C-alpha cells in the first residue's frame, strides 16, 4: 500500500532499537516518513510479536531488523557497508544485543543497576580491544559508518548514563563520546528517551519477554491462544509507582460527570468523540452459530459498551440482511413468501441477540423503503460519474418459470466427475467450482425443466477506475486507524492482484430494484446492496442519519466482522461510496476476527454440529457465562476453538475459583467481621504495592480496549483478581480479626482494600458480563459514579467504597459446571447425524451452511 514511492519508518517511544534507526536517519538525511506507534502495534504482519522499528519499503516489503534498516539508509545515501562493517553488525546482533537486553531488563524492570556492569563486561572488553588495535577515530576508518551508528546507539542508554564507569576502557570511551556528541544522536535520543534516560524505556521493557539467560522459563505468549494462562511473572513495582497509586486512590469518586442515560436518537456532537459502530449484517435465513456471534455482534457489543462507559458519544447499529437467492429458496422450501420468511427469521435473530444481551442502539433490516431510496441514490450517483459499465453475461433461463436461474437454482451432471446432483456453483462430490452453464443436462430446481442458455445484459462497477482513489484513502485509513493485521493483509492481497469490474445486478425478484429503465426486472446483487444496509438501517433509526454517514470529519467508523467479509468492507463498499462522491463516512477501524471452530471441527448446521444461537439458552448456562467464554476464546489474531471441556474448566477455574471467589470473600469479610460497613483503611507499603499493581493492570486494560483487543483486555481483569486472592491469602484477615488492636486494624485495611478492588472489577467486567457486573455493584451497594471515575483518562483506580459505606447482601456469583453436565451437553451438540435422514434434504440444507460465507460465495 506504500504505492507512492515513499519509505515509511515506524518507531515507538522508549524502544532502544529505535534509537539506532533514528540516529541513522538523521545522519544520512534520507527522506522518509516517520510514524510513532504503540509498542504493541504489529506493523510487520508476518511476525508473531510486534517488531519495531520497522521500515516499509516502496515495494511493500517490510524490514524489521534495525541493523538492516540502518544499512539500507546508509546505502541509499551512497555508503554501502563494507566487510568490516558487516562483521561489527553481526557481532552487535549476536553477541552485544543479548547482553544488552539482559542488562536493560535488570536495570529498568528489576531495578538492579549494580549487576549491569557484570553482564556487559565481556562485550565492552571486546569492543574496546577492537578499537584500540587500530588507531582510527571510527570503527572502520576515518569516517563515520553504519557500524559506528548502530553500536553506539545500542550502547547509548548505558554509556550516556554516568553511573557506568568506563574508566579502564579508554578507547571505547573516546570513541563513544565522539560519536554520541553528534547532533544526530542528541536528537534521536531525545525522541526515544524523552530525557528520562534508562527510565524512558520502562514501559517498553516491561512488555518484552524475559531474556533467555535469566532464570524464568520463557513465557512468551504466542501459541496457546488463551489469555490468562501466560502470566508475565512478577513485575517490579517502583516506589514512585506506589506513591502515585496511593495518591490516586485517595482522590475518591468524581462528583460529576456521570455517564448519562442514553437519549435516542443519538447524533454526533460538536465537542465529543463520535463513534459509529457496525457489526456485519447477519443473513436472515439461518440461525447464527457461536462463531457468527463472537465474530460480529458480540465483539461489537463489548466495544460499544466499553465506549459508552468511557463517555464517548457512540451509536451501535446492526440488522438482518434479507435480500437474495437464499431467501427465495428458503421461502420455497417452507412454503412461505420471501417477506414472510424474513419476518420470521428477523424475529428469531432479534430474540437470540436479546438473550445474549447485545445492546444495539438499533437493530433493523435491509428490506425497507429507505434501503431502496439510498441504494438507488448511490446507484445514480455512480452512474452519473461514469463508474458503471455494461456487459453481457451468459446465464441459464427456465422458460416455464419465466426467469433466469441463480447458480443455486440449477442442478445437473458435474462436468468433472459425473456426479448427478451437482449444484450450479459447486459439485458436492468432487468439490470443484462450476460455472452453471457448464453443467451437463441442467435442470431447473423448481420445475425440473431444462433451462436454456441466454445472454443477459448486466451492469458492472468499474473498480479499476476507482483503484487510485481507493489506494490513497486506504493508505491513510490503515495507517491512522486500528485495522487488524488480517484486515490489512487481505486488503493488500486484493489490491496486489488488481481489481476487476464487478457485476452489481442480478436476474432475481427478491432484491432492491435497479431503477435504470434498461435494466428493469433486475435487482442489485447482494454484495452491492447489503453494506448499504448500514446506512438505511441508520436512516430507519433517525431521519438525521446523514449526520453519521456523511460526516467523516466528526465521526469515526468501526466495522466489526469475521475475516471472510474483509474485502467487501475495505475494497468494494468503499469504492461504491468513493465513486458516489457525496462525502460519505468511510471505515476508520476495520476489526476482523479469525474463525472459531467447534471442538476442532467446523460449525455446520447441515451436519448438526455445533451450538447455534437459539440453543445456547437451553443449556441452562447463563448468558453472561457464554459471553465470558466466547470472549475468552475470541479468535483474535488466530483461529481458536470452542470446546465444552475447556468452557467448564474456564468457568470453574477462572470465574468460580478466581474472580468469583475473590469478590465473594471480600464482600463476606465486610459482612461478617465489620457488620456490613467498610472498615477504616491505613495503607502500608504492601497495600500501596498492590494498588500500584492493580492500577497497572487497569491501565493495560484501557490501552488494549481502546485498540479493540478485547480478548487481551479480559486477561488483565483476571490478573487483578489473582493479585487480590494472593493478597488476602498472605494477610489472612480471618485470623487477624481475632487478634489485638493492630491486627484487627490490619484485617480492616485488607478487607477495605479488597472490597474496593471488587468494585473496580465490577466496572471492568461491565462490557463483558453486564448482568454479573451489575449484580456485584448491587451487592456492594456501589455508587454508579464509580464507573465513569475509573474509566476516565488512562484508567483511575480510586477508593470508591470509603470507610463507613454500608454494603448490601453478598451471595455467590457463579456456579460450578459439573463433568456429567458438560458430557451430556457435548453429546447433545456433538454432531451425530440422524441415520435416517434422506440425502435429498441434506443437499438442500447445505445451501445455507454458513451465514458469514455468503458474501463470499457471491463473488466467486
Amino acid at each position: 500500500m506504500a504505492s507512492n514511492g515513499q519509505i515509511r519508518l515506524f518507531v515507538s517511544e522508549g524502544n532502544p532499537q529505535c534509537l539506532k534507526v533514528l540516529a541513522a536517519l538523521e545522519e544520512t538525511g534520507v527522506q522518509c516518513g516517520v510514524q510513532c506507534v504503540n509498542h504493541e502495534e504489529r506493523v510487520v504482519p508476518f511476525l508473531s510479536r510486534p517488531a519495531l522499528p520497522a521500515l516499509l519499503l516502496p515495494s511493500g516489503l517490510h524490514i524489521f531488523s534495525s541493523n538492516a534498516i540502518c544499512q539500507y539508509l546508509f546505502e541509499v545515501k551512497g555508503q554501502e557497508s563494507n566487510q568490516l562493517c558487516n562483521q561489527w553488525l553481526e557481532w552487535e546482533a549476536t553477541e552485544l544485543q543479548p547482553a544488552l537486553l539482559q542488562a536493560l531488563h535488570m536495570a529498568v524492570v528489576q531495578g538492579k543497576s549494580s549487576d549491569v556492569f557484570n553482564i556487559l563486561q565481556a562485550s565492552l572488553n571486546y569492543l574496546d580491544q577492537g578499537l584500540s588495535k587500530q588507531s582510527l577515530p571510527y570503527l572502520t576508518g576515518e569516517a563515520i559508518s553504519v557500524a559506528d551508528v548502530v553500536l553506539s546507539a545500542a550502547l547509548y542508554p548505558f554509556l550516556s548514563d554516568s553511573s557506568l564507569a568506563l574508566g579502564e576502557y579508554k578507547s571505547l570511551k573516546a570513541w563513544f563520546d565522539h560519536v554520541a556528541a553528534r547532533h544526530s544522536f542528541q536528537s534521536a535520543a531525545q525522541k526515544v528517551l524523552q530525557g528520562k534516560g534508562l527510565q524512558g524505556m520502562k514501559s517498553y521493557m516491561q512488555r518484552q519477554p524475559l531474556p533467555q539467560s535469566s532464570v524464568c522459563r520463557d513465557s512468551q505468549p504466542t501459541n496457546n491462544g488463551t489469555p490468562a494462562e501466560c502470566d508475565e511473572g512478577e513485575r517490579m513495582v517502583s516506589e514512585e509507582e506506589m506513591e502515585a497509586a496511593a495518591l490516586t486512590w485517595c482522590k475518591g469518586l468524581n462528583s460529576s460527570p456521570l455517564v448519562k442515560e442514553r437519549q435516542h436518537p443519538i447524533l454526533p456532537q460538536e465537542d465529543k468523540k463520535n463513534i459509529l459502530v457496525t457489526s456485519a449484517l447477519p443473513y436472515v435465513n439461518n440461525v447464527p452459530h457461536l462463531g457468527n456471534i463472537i465474530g460480529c455482534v458480540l465483539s461489537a457489543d463489548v466495544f460499544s459498551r466499553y465506549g459508552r462507559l468511557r463517555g464517548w458519544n457512540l451509536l451501535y447499529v446492526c440488522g438482518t440482511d434479507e435480500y437474495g437467492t437464499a431467501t427465495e429458496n428458503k421461502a420455497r422450501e417452507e412454503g412461505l413468501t420471501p417477506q414472510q420468511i424474513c419476518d420470521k427469521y428477523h424475529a428469531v435473530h432479534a430474540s437470540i441477540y436479546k438473550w445474549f444481551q447485545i445492546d444495539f442502539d438499533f437493530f433493523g433490516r435491509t428490506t425497507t423503503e429507505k434501503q431502496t431510496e439510498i441504494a438507488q441514490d448511490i446507484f445514480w450517483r455512480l452512474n452519473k460519474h461514469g463508474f458503471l459499465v455494461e456487459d453481457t453475461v451468459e446465464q441459464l433461463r427456465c422458460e416455464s418459470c419465466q426467469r433466469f436461474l441463480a447458480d443455486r437454482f440449477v442442478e445437473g451432471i458435474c462436468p468433472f466427475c459425473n456426479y448427478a446432483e451437482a449444484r450450479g456453483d459447486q459439485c458436492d462430490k468432487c468439490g470443484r467450482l462450476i460455472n452453471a452453464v457448464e453443467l451437463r443436462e441442467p435442470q431447473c430446481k423448481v420445475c425440473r425443466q431444462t433451462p436454456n442458455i441466454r445472454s443477459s445484459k448486466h451492469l458492472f462497477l468499474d473498480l479499476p477506475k476507482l483503484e487510485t482513489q481507493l489506494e490513497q484513502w486506504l493508505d491513510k485509513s490503515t495507517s491512522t486507524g486500528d485495522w487488524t493485521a488480517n484486515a490489512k493483509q487481505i486488503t493488500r492481497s486484493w489490491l496486489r492482484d488488481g481489481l476487476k469490474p464487478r457485476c452489481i445486478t442480478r436476474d432475481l425478484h427478491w432484491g432492491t430494484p435497479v431503477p435504470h429503465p434498461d435494466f428493469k426486472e433486475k435487482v442489485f446483487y447482494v454484495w452491492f446492496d447489503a453494506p448499504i444496509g448500514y446506512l438505511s438501517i441508520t436512516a430507519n433509526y433517525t431521519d438525521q442519519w446523514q449526520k453519521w454517514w456523511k460526516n467523516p470529519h466528526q465521526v469515526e467508523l468501526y466495522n466489526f466482522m469475521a475475516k471472510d467479509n474483509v474485502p467487501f468492507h475495505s475494497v468494494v463498499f468503499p469504492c461504491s461510496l468513493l465513486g458516489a462522491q457525496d462525502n460519505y463516512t468511510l471505515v476508520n477501524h476495520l476489526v476482523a476476527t479469525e474463525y472459531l471452530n467447534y471442538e476442532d471441527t467446523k460449525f455446520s448446521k447441515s451436519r448438526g454440529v455445533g451450538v447455534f444461537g437459539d440453543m445456547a439458552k437451553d443449556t441452562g448456562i447463563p448468558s453472561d457465562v457464554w459471553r465470558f467464554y466466547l470472549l475468552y476464546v475470541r479468535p483474535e489474531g488466530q483461529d481458536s476453538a470452542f470446546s465444552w471441556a475447556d468452557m467448564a474448566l474456564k468457568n470453574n477455574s477462572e470465574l468460580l475459583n478466581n474472580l468469583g471467589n475473590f469478590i465473594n470473600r471480600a464482600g463476606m469479610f465486610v459482612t461478617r467481621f465489620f457488620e456490613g460497613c467498610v472498615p477504616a483503611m491505613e495503607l502500608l507499603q504492601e497495600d500501596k504495592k498492590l494498588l500500584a499493581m492493580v492500577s497497572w493492570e487497569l491501565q493495560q486494560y484501557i490501552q488494549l480496549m481502546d485498540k479493540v483487543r478485547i480478548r487481551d483486555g479480559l486477561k488483565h481483569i483476571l490478573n487483578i483478581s489473582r493479585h487480590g486472592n494472593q493478597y488476602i491469602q498472605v494477610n489472612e484477615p480471618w485470623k487477624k480479626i481475632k487478634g489485638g488492636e493492630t491486627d484487627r486494624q490490619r484485617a480492616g485495611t485488607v478487607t477495605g482494600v479488597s472490597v474496593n478492588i471488587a468494585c473496580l472489577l465490577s466496572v471492568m467486567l461491565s462490557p463483558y458480563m453486564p448482568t454479573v457486573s451489575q449484580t456485584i455493584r448491587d451487592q456492594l451497594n456501589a455508587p454508579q459514579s464509580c464507573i465513569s471515575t475509573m474509566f476516565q483518562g488512562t484508567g483511575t483506580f480510586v477508593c470508591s467504597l470509603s470507610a463507613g459505606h454500608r454494603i448490601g447482601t453478598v451471595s455467590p456469583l457463579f456456579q460450578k459446571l459439573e463433568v456429567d453436565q458438560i458430557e451430556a451437553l457435548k453429546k447433545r451438540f456433538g454432531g451425530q447425524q440422524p441415520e435416517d435422514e434422506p440425502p435429498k434434504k441434506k443437499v438442500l440444507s447445505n445451501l445455507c451452511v454458513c451465514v458469514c460465507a455468503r458474501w463470499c460465495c457471491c463473488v466467486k
Partner: protein
Amino acid sequence: MALRELSSLEKYLELKKPNKYSTQGDKKVPVLQSNNGAPQVGLVTIACYLVKEAKRSELLGNSAESRAVVQQWLEYRVTRLNGCAKDDVKTILKELNLYLQDITYLAGKQFTLADILMYYGIHPLIVDLTVLEKEQHVNVTRWFDHIQHYPGIRRHLPPVAVLRNRIYTSGH
C-alpha cells in the same frame, strides 16, 4: 555445524581452494584467518565474504532494497534460529510460513544467500516435523523443498521427504 555449512557454501560457489576455519567462544563462532590482514569472524560475515570472493554478489541482492532484505534474513538466521529453544520453533515456522505465503524466495523473486543459510539452519527443524506439521506449514515446506532441490545446494544434508498434497481452491 557452521563449518560444514561454510564448506558446502564454498563448493556451491565453486571456490577453488578450500579455506581453513577455526572457532571461537562457547558458541563456536566461525573464524576465517585470511592471508591478508585481520580475521573474519561470524557466519554471516564469512559467508558474505565468500560470495564476494566468488564474484557472485548478486547472491547478496541486486538493489539496495533486496540487499537490506537479504541482510535481515541472514540476521534472523543467526539470531533466531541458532540455538533456538523448543518453544521458539513453532513461532519461527509460523512466521516464515506467513512470510513465504506469496513469495518464492526470502528476497522475493530472486534466489539469494539468505535462502542458502536459512535452508542450512532450518534443516534440523524440518527433519523433526510430523507429516501433519509439514502440512500446517505448507509454505515453508514448499520453499524448503524448492531450495533442497536447487542445483548444488543440499551437499552435506540428507534430503527430507515432503508430502505433496493436491491443493483445492477452497470455495464455500
